[in-house]
């Protein structure tokens, strides 16, 4: 029977009709497909795919911005781009890659995998999850809307944000950047922070509270562990930048003096608040990739992960120490010897748990039957490249050396090694590894490996020369340079490497698109996986598990494959027990999360341009944007109120012994 159920990939046509409740503004949506189905979905898998789709789109946009930057720098004294455009490009490249590409890609995997790895049917708060997604979209719109003013003169934003991704004060003050673009940057980041906090709260509750029977914390897959640590980092680190952004917003709009030297403010406060967030953010970007790699390496080494408890502990230690190293971004500001020495020591200390993890991964490979499939290639590339980035990182931790490297291309080389060689390689490995699970098709090995080699070679050609450029004194964020500086060859190689890297990324995603339509059909478990997501059909049915699994071991699915009779019996009992309690409970879809996010969009978009008159057809309608901002707020509050009245709702799925699934509604 369990086999019959496993074979039946149920996604259904439409939900059971909702009994018209009289206490609602409009009927709850039930469409599972089509536009309404996606806009109102509360299914963690669909939300994960939307996150992933948007993130890949912005990953490509950020990549395009990088290629424009490299084209400008390919030869000395180049005038391919205007200096102002160049500023906008490097600002938006950084902001996009961090907040709109790597973070949401991680969020996509959190959504897709956490419920499956903990053996749950969804996250703890499905509607809140949908809210996080749409709030994230609002943030992405606010950050990028400035580009429009290059194409439509009527949109007077003054271009895209151009204050650098860390927006140092006092450059962000009204005196230096009067354009709206900076206000939109402030609100965009604020909204993205809100989205991340809400999503993280949801994941924390899901991981701690929704674990299947038998799944103790020390049996959690390492990816889920790292997701938990990352979520805690997010909820504790984001408030610092939120307050910093509030202070900039007040300085710009209400005349406060937080960063105004003439009024007694100190611009360095911005640096502290920003990096109190910004350094944990680095680990927010890299801990989930460490999780993917910890899942992929054992699978393709045919061995359990070496030193599981130490890897988990190291991840937690990295998260913890990560809050005590922020001032190493500020060694050249003159903190004083004691503070500098303390932060230098803490920075050296954080390399220890990171090194421990690398040794454990090598220990996993040691003596294993290594299968060099594409995800494994990227994972091995990750270990090597991330280590190189780590080495230059340790060089920065020595404050005197850092004084030479600060704001030079050496720093650019360092963090691209950890963010591309580290985070991105692991993400590309993860996309390749879990693609068969969520789309049911395999990616061809040859093309996958080709894209790997193009990316690997292109990446090293781009960023390795930057170490030397930096040590030769090339400052970051320079629009152009003179031909007698000795930087010509390095820049030429880097730019050519960037085109190769771009070709590799293009190949990678082109192959994915081809595989989506034409790839070989994958079974439930194409890699002989270890974790629970491989025990269910590909793509997973909406209820994930026909029976909530009982977890017997750390590598739960490997255990089940060796104890099939025992598990089959257990599953059948679970299904029966659940059916006797009314069947599998599924949450209803809802309009309110996206309506609330829409209210937030109206509110923040207008709040960002508060003091500007509202014009329509060349006539001033309102003296300020306040009425429109309040309208947005009212939409948000009303939607939240109706959301609370609506309740979680829900319907039940029933699984017949032959694996057929039916739906019902009733008051259980």
């Amino acid at each position, binding site marked *: 029977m369990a086999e019959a159920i496993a074979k039946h990939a149920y996604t259904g046509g439409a939900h059971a009709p909702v009994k018209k409740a009289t*206490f609602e503004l409009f009927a709850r949506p039930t469409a599972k497909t089509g536009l309404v189905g996606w806009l109102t979905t509360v299914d963690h898998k669909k939300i994960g795919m939307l996150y992933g789709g948007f993130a890949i789109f912005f990953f490509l946009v950020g990549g395009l911005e990088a290629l424009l930057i490299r084209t400008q720098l390919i030869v000395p004294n180049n005038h391919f781009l205007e200096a102002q455009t160049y500023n906008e490009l490097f600002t938006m490249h950084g902001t996009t890659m961090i907040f709109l590409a790597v973070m949401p890609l991680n969020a996509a995997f959190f959504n897709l995998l956490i419920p499956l790895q903990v053996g749950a049917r969804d996250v703890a708060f499905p509607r809140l999850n949908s809210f996080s997604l749409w709030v994230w979209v609002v943030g992405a719109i606010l950050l990028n809307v400035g580009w429009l003013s290059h194409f439509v003169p009527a949109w007077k934003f003054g271009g895209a944000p151009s204050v650098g991704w860390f927006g140092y004060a006092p450059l962000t003050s009204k005196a230096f950047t009067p354009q709206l673009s900076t206000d939109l940057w402030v609100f965009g980041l604020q909204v993205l922070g809100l989205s991340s906090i809400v999503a993280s709260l949801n994941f924390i509750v899901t991981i701690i509270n929704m674990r299947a029977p038998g799944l103790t914390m020390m049996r959690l897959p390492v990816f889920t562990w790292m997701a938990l640590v990352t979520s805690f980092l997010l*909820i504790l680190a*984001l408030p610092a930048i939120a307050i910093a952004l509030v202070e900039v917003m007040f300085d710009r709009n*209400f005349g406060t*003096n937080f960063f105004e030297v003439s009024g*007694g403010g100190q611009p360095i*406060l911005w640096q502290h608040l920003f990096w109190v967030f910004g350094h944990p953010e680095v680990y927010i970007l890299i801990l989930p990739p460490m999780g993917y790699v910890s899942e992929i390496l054992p699978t393709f080494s045919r061995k359990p992960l070496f030193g599981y408890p130490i890897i988990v502990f190291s991840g937690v230690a990295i998260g913890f120490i990560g809050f005590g190293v922020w001032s190493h971004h500020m060694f050249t500001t003159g903190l004083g010897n004691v503070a500098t020495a303390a932060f230098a020591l803490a920075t050296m200390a954080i390399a220890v748990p990171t090194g421990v993890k690398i040794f454990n991964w090598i220990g996993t490979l040691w003596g294993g039957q290594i299968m060099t499939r594409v995800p494994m290639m990227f994972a091995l590339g990750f270990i090597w490249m991330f280590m190189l980035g780590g080495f230059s990182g340790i060089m920065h931790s020595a404050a005197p050396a850092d004084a030479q490297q600060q704001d030079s291309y050496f720093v650019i080389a360092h963090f691209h090694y950890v963010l591309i060689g580290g985070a991105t390689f692991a993400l590309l490995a993860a996309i390749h590894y879990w693609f068969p699970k969520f789309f049911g098709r395999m990616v061809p090995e040859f093309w996958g490996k080709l894209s790997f080699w193009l990316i690997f070679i292109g990446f090293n050609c781009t960023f390795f020369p930057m170490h030397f450029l930096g040590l030769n004194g090339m400052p970051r964020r320079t629009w152009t340079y003179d031909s007698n500086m000795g930087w010509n060859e390095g820049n030429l190689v880097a730019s050519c490497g960037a085109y190769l890297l771009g070709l590799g990324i293009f190949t990678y995603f082109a192959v994915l698109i081809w595989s989506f339509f034409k790839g070989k059909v994958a079974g439930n478990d194409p890699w002989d996986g270890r974790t629970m997501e491989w025990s269910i059909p590909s793509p997973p049915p909406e209820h994930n598990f026909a029976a909530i699994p009982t977890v017997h071991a750390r590598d739960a699915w490997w255990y089940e494959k060796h104890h099939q009779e025992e598990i089959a019996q257990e599953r059948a009992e679970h299904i029966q027990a659940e059916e006797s309690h009314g069947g599998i409970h599924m949450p209803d879809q809802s309009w309110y999360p996206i309506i609330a996010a829409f209210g937030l969009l109206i509110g923040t978009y207008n709040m960002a341009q508060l003091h500007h008159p509202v014009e329509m057809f060349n006539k001033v309608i309102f003296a300020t944007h306040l009425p429109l901002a309040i309208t947005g707020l009212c939409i948000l509050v009303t939607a939240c109120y109706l959301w609370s009245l609506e309740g979680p709702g829900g319907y039940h799925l029933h699984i017949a012994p032959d694996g057929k699934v039916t739906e019902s509604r009733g008051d259980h």
Partner: protein
Amino acid sequence: MNSHAATIDHHHDATTATGIPNKKLLWWAFLASDCMFFGALISTHLVYRLNPPPGNAVPTQIFNIELTSFSTFILLMSSLLMALAVNAIQRGNVRSTRTMLLGTMFFGCLFLGGQVFEFTHFVYVKKMTLSNSIFGSTFFTLTGTHGTHVAIGVLLLGMMYVRTFKPAQGGGLLLNFVHLLAVCVTFGVAFIWFVPGMIEVVYGASFSELLREHAIPFAAGIVGLIALIALGRTRGAVEFGEKNAIDVEAIGLYWHFVDIVWIIIFTAVYLLEYL
């Protein structure tokens, strides 16, 4: 509404891995995050306090410490009413829950009214604004953020109060919405105009002049109050009951937290200046 009384365990949720209800865990995690918000704001205030520029406002000449002490006491007492509201719903007593929710909101409004009075007084009498001193910038931003938290708390309690009237059967969304509007108007008028005005009266202003000055908001407030009383008399079965104890408790967590934060702000921003 008491039919399930024996079956609900308010301290253990059998459906979760830890036994802690999901909503409670969510609020605890959120409060951890909120600590960092206030941590950043309080740090900003304290850092700038140590480095005052020439001509900065002198806090002890501006504060009205007696009034702030009184409103601090009021806010602390509101926590007692909040605890009683949670206790009432855990016993399934919806009527008592409503009374205690209204009481908590009323005390919250007294506190907020004190803050509105304080802010107006500082700006118009003591001439300290957001922009004319760094002390003004940090003080108004920090206490204003706290005040916003209290105001959101009152709004959440108001939504909860209105939700207790959601009928078990049948419609009434529009009526419910009018009810919420009445709550917002009544309590809004109370803390923006009425309470600060009454404090003025205590300090010697004329009551009749106060009535003349804010005739329109007071009229709106009275209409709201009458609507509130009328709608509060509704009888009939409601959906809200002991099963919603976790919802009330979750808001209670938030309310107590905002209270505790105020104790820290009162110490770090006000009392510290008198050492």
